[in-house]
């Protein structure tokens, strides 16, 4: 664990990274309609400014000769100071967080620029940019914070921004309910993260990274296991991992730039960041890491299988994201052999998946916002730039060398084979199978959207317009081109000579090389062969003839299961929602009959007895006089008895 040094020079201005987007969001939200004309420009300017500063900070950090000095801490102010709980608000500037800063502000800038074109016809476009700026500020706080509480602050901030942006088309019921679903399922994960933080504070009295990680030996092994699992729960919620994966595909109800930035490139990878950041804790628990690997492996298969069956352009990409994050989680679950590989796949994925989403947005923009791929086909001719950039991203995703995905995914698959005993075969096999399936469903997408015969010529979109596909404006295509360049060269650039893993060493420790049950070269060949095989099968199945516009309903069981999200929603419904309803009903019954019964019963008892007792008040003066007399005689008699006995 590298001890941080106090930030100096250009790094002492790192608060600008948070302040710029937060300032943009504040101005756009407070300024209201007055900012309509230039709001989007301000939104882009703040992010570009943050990106520029991030680049300067990055190069100044690279310029520090001694890697030990590259971890810097910038103390801003004392945030919480209550009794034993002290949380200082500070930024940790180390290779890991700087990598994320560049990803977030870099991809974020491109997507901001893309949004100018994409959201041009939207009313309240500046509000959209305000939310995007808010998201970037929160995400930067998440990765830059120097303690778990600061991370939690950012974690909730991105959750809020995600909620606001998924529900952007709030007049559509499915968007509104998708936003709520995302928010609620994220809360389940956040609960785990919060309890993990409580456990750390309970044992160590601090939540700052430096102290927690240097005193991690003070935890008992049970506590370590609990913390690893609870952090994993948090990661599952935010990153759409099994069993909390169901919100991510629904989140595609938001605008496409949001899907690209938040639900593909940055926010959903926060879970991977969390685990990589907490690696000193995970290092100590092989069991915890095994659970992480199982979750990653299961999720990557779920994502692939469901991705094969969906007909919605963005939902297929969403399940692809679920599956790719499964790879990253699997990688960081491998421990020291995988932390840096997970981060590398995260970076390359950020490039090509954002590019794929922006391509999808470009297609939908030209097709009256149609998302059903069965109503597309043959679009390559009409959207040439989109087609080329999308295909480059596609090649990167399915892992064809020399595109970016090959370097990162192949490395993860090779590392997955290194486990001892059955683990190597199982996780390696799962990862390899996932690569084949990825190639299959992505090729299906490519064929149905861009190749083959046009199926949309005779059709009209839901609002009654004919389809006139056209290429998107420059503000949209330029970001796609830049991302495509990243998807082509990024993997080679990051992996050659261990460039990224060496750079991340002060944060994540040394990347260990282990020899698995299959050699690295062998795995590389197998990955490519499987990818080509998957793509070939897809070509054989979908490449010939014309696909039906209506989706076939008489399908085999696996397809039906996949169309129903592999019963993920049904499982959640049966396991959590229904017992919850029953519990609520039982509690309501107990409340009505038990608590209310007790209270109302007491009142009725008193009321009834009073009603009977009041009959004593007859209104006859003489009977009152008699009772007074009798009372007096009684008192006198009692006195006499006491006196003379």
């Amino acid at each position, binding site marked *: 664990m590298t001890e941080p040094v106090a930030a100096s020079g250009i790094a002492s201005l790192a608060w600008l990274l948070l302040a710029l987007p937060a300032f943009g969001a504040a101005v756009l939200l407070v300024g209201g309609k007055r900012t309509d004309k230039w709001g989007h420009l301000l939104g882009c300017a703040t992010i570009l400014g943050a990106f520029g500063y991030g680049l300067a900070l990055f190069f100044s950090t690279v310029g520090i000769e001694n890697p030990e000095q590259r971890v810097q801490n910038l103390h801003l102010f004392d945030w919480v100071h209550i009794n034993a709980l002290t949380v200082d608000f500070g930024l940790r500037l180390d290779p890991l967080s700087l990598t994320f800063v560049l990803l977030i502000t870099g991809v974020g800038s491109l997507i901001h620029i893309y949004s100018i074109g994409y959201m041009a016809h939207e009313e309240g476009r500046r509000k959209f940019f305000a939310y995007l700026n808010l998201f970037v500020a929160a995400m930067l706080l998440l990765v830059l914070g120097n303690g778990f509480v600061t991370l939690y602050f950012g974690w909730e901030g991105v959750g809020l921004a995600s909620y606001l942006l998924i529900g952007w088309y709030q007049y559509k019921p499915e968007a509104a309910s998708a936003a709520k679903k995302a928010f609620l399922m994220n809360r389940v994960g956040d609960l785990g993260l919060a309890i993990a933080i409580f456990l750390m504070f309970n044992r160590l009295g601090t939540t700052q990274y430096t102290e927690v990680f240097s005193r991690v030996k003070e935890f008992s092994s049970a506590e370590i296991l609990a913390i690893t699992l609870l952090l994993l729960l948090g990661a599952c919620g935010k990153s759409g991992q099994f069993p909390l994966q169901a919100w991510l595909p629904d989140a595609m109800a938001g605008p496409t730039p949001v899907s690209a930035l938040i639900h593909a490139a940055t926010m959903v990878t926060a879970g991977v960041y969390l685990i990589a950041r907490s690696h000193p804790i995970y290092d100590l628990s092989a069991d915890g890491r095994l659970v992480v690997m199982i979750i990653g492996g299961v999720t990557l298969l779920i994502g692939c299988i469901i991705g094969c069956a969906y007909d919605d352009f963005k939902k297929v990409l969403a399940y692809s994201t679920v599956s790719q994050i499964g790879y990253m989680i699997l990688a960081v679950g491998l421990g020291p052999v995988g932390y840096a590989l997970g981060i590398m796949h995260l970076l390359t994925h950020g490039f090509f998946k954002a590019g794929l989403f922006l391509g999808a947005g470009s297609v939908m923009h030209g097709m009256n916002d149609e998302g059903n791929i069965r109503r597309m086909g043959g679009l390559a001719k009409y959207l040439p730039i989109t087609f080329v950039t999308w295909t480059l991203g596609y090649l990167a995703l399915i892992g064809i060398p020399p595109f970016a995905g090959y370097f990162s995914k192949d490395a993860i698959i090779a590392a997955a084979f290194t486990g001892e005993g059955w683990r190597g075969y199982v996780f390696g096999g799962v990862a390899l199978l996932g690569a084949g399936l990825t190639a299959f469903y992505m090729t299906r997408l490519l064929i149905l959207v861009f190749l083959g015969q046009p199926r949309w010529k005779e059709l009209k979109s839901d609002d009654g317009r004919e389809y006139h596909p056209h290429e998107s404006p420059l503000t949209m295509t330029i970001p796609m081109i830049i991302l495509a360049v990243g998807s082509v060269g990024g993997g080679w650039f990051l992996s050659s000579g261990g460039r990224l893993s060496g750079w991340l060493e002060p944060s994540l420790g040394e990347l260990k090389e282990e020899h698995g049950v299959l050699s690295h070269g062998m795995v590389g060949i197998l990955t490519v062969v499987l990818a080509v095989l998957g793509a070939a099968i897809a070509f054989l199945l979908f490449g010939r003839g014309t696909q039906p516009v209506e989706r076939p309903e008489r399908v085999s069981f696996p397809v039906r299961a996949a169309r129903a999200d592999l019963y993920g929603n049904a499982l959640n419904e049966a396991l959590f929602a229904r017992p919850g309803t029953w519990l609520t009903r039982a509690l309501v019954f107990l409340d009505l009959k038990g608590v209310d019964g007790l209270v109302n019963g007491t009142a009725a008892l008193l009321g009834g007895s009073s009603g009977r007792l*009041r*009959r004593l*008040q*007859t209104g*006859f*003066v*003489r009977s009152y*006089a008699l009772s007074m007399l009798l009372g007096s005689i009684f008192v006198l008699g009692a006195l006499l008895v006491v006196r003379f006995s």
Partner: protein
Amino acid sequence: MTPTYYLLLSALLFSIGAVGVLVRRNAIVVFMCVELMLNAVNLSLVTFARINGSLDGQVMAFFVMVVAAAEVVVGLAIIMSIFRTRRSASVDDSNLLKY
């Protein structure tokens, strides 16, 4: 002449008054019975003063007389006004103040 007879007379008068209050319906008669009870008590007060050779009891009897006089004034006025409105002086008729 022993004070005992005075006390016995006092008790007898008090009992007559008490029974009168309990059994008679006419408000005026009930009122007179109350006066009878007060004066029975006065009698016993004076008797005890005599027995103890102190004036306290006699002074007390004066206070009772003053209170009784005031009570007669107020009580008769109430009875009069009830009689005017209800055309009856029976204590059992004015029984509205009940459950």
